[in-house]
């Protein structure tokens, strides 16, 4: 019998977010009524955030295997082989709700959390990225949220000394009341020195390390699994405060300890803190665990068992050590001035037993926490077929350069410099290409090898057609990796959606995962880790669906990579993936259409996975052989925007030949997929290679030493002018 006499009722369970069925199931499994601590543990483990109850059915359909995969989903982060006996270990994670409540700390702790997931595996983190979505630029909260989130991301990453090398920021009114803050971390480890979380060896000591436990963020996993309303804003739990300084010490101490031969298993305390770490370690090992909560280093007096188990205080880890390694380990944590406390042991019982104040505070079987976690096949509505938008319907009489000015000067496309200059993007001195290009490129320390990393998603497309949008997120990430000359390896994903209990939202979730899976399988970029963030709604309005893809690729020699800027006058400009006959383009769900005020939803550009694969592979070869000197994938804003972006930060301009018939704006701004703009000094070799590979190619112009963009003979703008518009936008917004 547990000591806590105050037994729970269904009302208590409901307040913790459990349904009637879930409550009944707990009673059945326990064969008695739980106390507060026990119920808290069930509710956390069965929360959407920890159990993936709405998404699991669909996540299982994702491809997770491949010769490059060392560790797929299921551990703290995924791991892929990058050659030389090294593994890239990476994951992305959301901190949407906390960042809306307290943008600086919410974003900072998001970065801290994802870094712990990566170094828990024994990897030294080498790069951070982030995918952000804010409300409309002129919404009253946007400035405050953008400023706070960016400062928070920088605040944590800069201090801990991991470069933030890339990411994305977009604005849309559907995020007015629910921003998205997704952080991705990538680390490196020796392939044969990867640490996992399954507890081993009954009798082995369970050790708590890091910062002390306080009453912060109690039951955060449950908060992340509920919709926002004015009511929840008032009963929200205290947000956690990040401490990057302690985070840095914890990272160094853990990596130092892992280099010795002491650690059997290790798990960070992320969502649901001590609960999820102890439950996951024990259950993955098929064992049990006993913890004396009186030994847990606490920051405050009088914390209850419930509070200790559900606190989400930051910078903490749980480890199982070899029995004779405790002294070695303690010395390391002492050196770094961190708490180190044996708090329990691994058992054979298959139960989680917690002691407090001399009694038993919790004694529950582990199996139901994990195996009986509910899994729902939630109903979906049929996704409506969207019509194709005829280019004529989006017609404007303006010259291309006028549209370029308004598009590049708009928050949708303007320079992100205001954001990324707040991130230390080159600490560790291995950043070869930081923010501002297609994929980031980070050298493997002490070698010529490089990791290419990107995050991508186009919510417009996902909203219009979830399956195509899911595919497109993978395809665009794939293109970004190929565009610098790297070979795509694998992905992580962050599925940001509204309330899955609504059939329309469930359809977005399910169908975009289907699309993502198809693309990942076809492009041989398996999913090795990820995160799901649901209930992104405020007062019943859901966000635009945003299944973010983070992709990692590898390049053998970083000196062979190319950027997206023009590099030399008189080089020829080609479109790879399009032939001379094309004189129109896909404007449905395009940025151009949005800027023409078209609000009806049209079909997004279709994805041809064969074309993506073939074109990407050819481009990587052409970069490796030195044939292609600069490359940029065509995405938001189409061809014209891609060309403009290639000139903006170069010392060159371009002269572009226009099609003589067809729909000029469709051609210039259409967002047809599987295309790149590339430059070369040896046009014939490139055309020949493309023809041989069966890839469409079309010469569209020449790089000029005159810093002007010339579209045909009568439509010209200075690069400087465009650049000023692009650079001025975010600073002006933030200056208010």
């Amino acid at each position, binding site marked *: 019998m547990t000591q806590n006499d105050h037994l729970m009722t269904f009302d208590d369970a409901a307040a913790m977010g459990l349904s009637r069925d879930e409550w009944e199931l707990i009673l059945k499994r326990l064969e008695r009524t739980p106390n507060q601590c026990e119920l808290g543990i069930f509710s956390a483990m069965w929360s959407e955030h920890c159990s993936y109850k709405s998404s699991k059915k669909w996540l299982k359909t994702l491809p997770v295997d491949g010769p490059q995969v060392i560790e797929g989903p299921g551990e703290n982060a995924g791991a892929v082989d990058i050659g030389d006996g090294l593994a890239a270990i990476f994951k992305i994670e959301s901190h949407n709700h906390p960042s809306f409540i*307290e943008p600086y700390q919410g974003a900072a702790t998001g970065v801290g959390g994802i870094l712990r997931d990566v170094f828990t595996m024994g990897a030294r983190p080498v790069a951070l990225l982030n995918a952000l979505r804010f409300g409309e630029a002129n919404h009253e909260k946007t400035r405050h949220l953008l400023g706070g989130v960016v400062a928070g991301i920088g605040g944590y990453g800069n201090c801990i000394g991991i470069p933030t090398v890339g990411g994305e920021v977009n604005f849309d009114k559907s995020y007015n009341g629910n921003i998205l803050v997704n952080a991705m971390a990538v680390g490196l480890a020796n392939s044969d020195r990867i640490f996992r979380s399954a507890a081993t060896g009954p009798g082995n000591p369970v050790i708590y390390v890091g910062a002390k436990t*306080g009453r*912060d963020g109690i039951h955060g996993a449950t908060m992340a699994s509920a919709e926002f309303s004015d009511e929840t804003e008032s009963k*929200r739990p205290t*947000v956690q*405060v990040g*401490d990057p300084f*302690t985070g840095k010490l914890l990272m160094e101490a853990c990596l130092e300890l892992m280099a010795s031969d002491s650690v059997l298993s290790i798990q960070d305390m992320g969502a649901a803190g001590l609960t999820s770490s102890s439950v996951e370690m024990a259950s993955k090992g098929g064992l049990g665990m006993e913890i004396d909560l009186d030994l847990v280093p606490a*920051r405050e007096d009088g914390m209850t068992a419930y509070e200790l188990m559900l606190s989400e205080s930051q910078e903490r880890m749980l480890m199982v050590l070899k029995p004779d390694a405790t002294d070695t380990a303690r010395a390391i944590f002492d050196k770094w001035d961190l708490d180190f406390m044996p708090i329990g042991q691994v058992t054979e019982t298959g139960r989680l037993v917690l002691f407090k104040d001399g009694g038993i505070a919790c004694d529950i079987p582990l199996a139901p926490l994990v195996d009986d976690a509910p899994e729902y096949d939630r109903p979906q509505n049929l996704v409506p077929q969207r019509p194709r938008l005829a280019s004529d319907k989006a017609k404007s009489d303006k010259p291309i350069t006028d549209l370029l000015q308004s598009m590049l000067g708009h928050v949708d496309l303007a320079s992100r410099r205001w954001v990324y200059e707040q991130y230390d993007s080159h600490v560790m001195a291995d950043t070869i290409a930081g923010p501002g290009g297609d994929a980031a490129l980070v050298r493997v320390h002490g070698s010529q090898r490089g990791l290419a990393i990107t995050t991508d998603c186009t919510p417009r497309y996902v909203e219009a057609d979830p399956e195509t949008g899911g595919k497109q997120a993978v395809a665009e990430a794939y293109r970004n990796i190929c565009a610098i000359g790297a070979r795509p390896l694998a992905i992580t994903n962050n599925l940001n959606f509204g309330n899955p209990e609504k059939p329309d939202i469930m359809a977005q979730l399910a169908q975009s995962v289907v699309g993502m899976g198809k693309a990942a399988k076809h492009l041989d970029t398996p999913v090795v880790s990820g995160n799901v963030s649901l209930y992104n709604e405020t007062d019943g309005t859901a966000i635009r669906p945003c299944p973010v893809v983070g992709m990692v690729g590898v390049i053998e020699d970083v000196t062979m990579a190319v950027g997206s800027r023009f590099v030399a006058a008189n080089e020829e400009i080609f479109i790879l993936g399009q032939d001379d006959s094309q004189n129109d383009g896909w404007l449905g769900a395009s940025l151009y259409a949005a800027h023409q005020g078209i609000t009806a939803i049209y079909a997004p550009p279709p994805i041809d996975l064969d074309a993506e694969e073939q074109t990407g592979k050819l481009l990587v070869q052409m970069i490796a052989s030195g044939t292609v000197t600069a490359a940029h994938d065509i995405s938001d804003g189409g061809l014209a925007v891609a060309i403009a972006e290639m000139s903006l930060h170069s010392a060159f301009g371009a002269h572009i030949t226009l099609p003589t018939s067809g729909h000029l704006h469709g051609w210039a701004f259409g967002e047809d997929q599987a295309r790149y703009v590339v430059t070369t000094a040896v046009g014939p070799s490139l055309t020949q290679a493309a023809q041989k590979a069966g890839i469409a190619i079309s010469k569209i112009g020449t790089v000029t030493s005159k810093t002007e963009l010339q579209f045909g003979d009568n439509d010209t703008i200075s690069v400087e002018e465009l650049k000023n518009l692009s650079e001025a936008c975010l600073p002006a917004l933030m200056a208010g």
Partner: protein
Amino acid sequence: MQAIVNISLKEGVLDPQGRAIARSLGDLGFSEVNDVRVGKQILLEIDETDPARLRQRVARMCETLLSNTVIEDYSIDIADET
């Protein structure tokens, strides 16, 4: 008139800065220091002659901008108030 706003972290909210300072003070030989918490002090020079109204306005400033009530508490001192 002058108003002083003192902003401190709510009880229970981690104060990493305070902890680091406490530890350094200990290392420097100030072993009598048990705990340190760090807050902000904001001095406002305001065109307003009525203390009651001033207090009200400053409270509004605290709620809208100066303090983040999720993690911080604030208190207001009005110099010439009786």
